[in-house]
């Protein structure tokens, strides 16, 4: 798969990077969102500001 992409035309490679990159950023931040939600479950145990 990687070898095929490495030999693909420049624009195809670009579309791959842009597509995977944008989806990757979204998924990462979705994970961060749930991380914050999870951490907030500890709220009661920490001292509030």
């Amino acid at each position: 798969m990687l070898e095929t992409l490495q030999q693909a035309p420049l624009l195809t490679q670009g579309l791959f990077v842009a597509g995977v990159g944008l989806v990757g950023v979204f998924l990462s931040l979705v994970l961060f969102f749930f991380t914050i939600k999870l951490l907030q479950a500890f709220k009661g145990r920490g001292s509030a500001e």
Partner: protein
Amino acid sequence: MSEIFNELLSGVTYFGSMDGLRALVMFIIAGVLIYLAIAKDYEPALLLPIGFGAILVNLPPVFAGASAVLGSAEEPGFLQILYNAGIATELFPILIFIAVGAMIDFSPLFRQPVMIFFGAAAQFGIFATFLLTLIILPLIGIEGANAMRLAAAVGIIGAADGPTTIYVANHFNLKEYMGPISVAAYSYMSLVPIIQPPVIRALTSKKERQIRMDYSDKPVSRIVRLLFPVTITIIAGILVPMSVPLVGSLMFGNLIRECGVLERLSKSAQNELANLVTILLGLTIGSTMVADKFIRLETAAIMLLGLLAFVFDTAGGVLFAKLINVFLKKKINPMIGAAGISAFPMSARVIQKMAKKDDPENFILMQAISANVSGQLGSIIAGGFIITLVTWLVGRA
């Protein structure tokens, strides 16, 4: 005797040569940067050192073609030493991130975690510009793997985050393009109040800009503040290992801030470290603006594409907000989407100013700041992805 005389006047006669005329053009460009810094207060901490560095490197050469501040391979000048130590090693951007991490308060994001999605949407400009650059570069003679690497660095100007931009450009050994890429990144960051409003106005109606949003100033647990930087570093390290130097240093700075027992270190990171590295970073970036590498078609292309990256980012954020409004009963002010770029806190202030203009009693600053700090995270992750994917496909060079 005449040889001695010629040698003594070589600096004066230099400006009669083609190289000398190019140097004069660079002095004008440097003068504009210094003017913007002093007279317009546009990112003065960076544009002024960059402008002055550009003057230093374009003074008459002492060594074969290079000014005294760059020196030769055997005897590097002080700016070359700083470049080798701080940019080529990626040290300066990392140190800046520790300082930035110590300055950022993530509390508004903890109060409205949903705003984090705007930090992703506003990275659209990075990838759109990356693709556009890939189409344009072959037209000016840059093709193949080099085009892919340069497109990555030009696209990341849309991160609206100077250190990330420098980090990516350096990762792909794009020293000869470092000047225009950095100047584009920092000057457009300072021009956010001019770039964003027309794009936002073009994509939103007055009614949409008048949407009010609730904000609860509820307290944030200390344990959330403490665990957030550690957890995010680990998750980012697992998902996008290439982003660890950036995410790790940002989160380390934030942990120093939030831990509550390192106040001196936190203040040092926010002040002394930030100030010292900013001076060195600015001067060193300026030293890459050597006339023969700066005055060329590629620089104009990079400056134009960098501007488009900011426009696409803004549009991506606003359009994403409008899209999710289709599914929401309680609408989001779509201008918040534009604050998802990383230019912190300038973008959030611009959004609040625009909101106030259309409705003097509308206060959406805290929501905009939530999106803005998310943009900081989003841009680093985007940088990590672009480095990883492009390195997979074409290598580092």
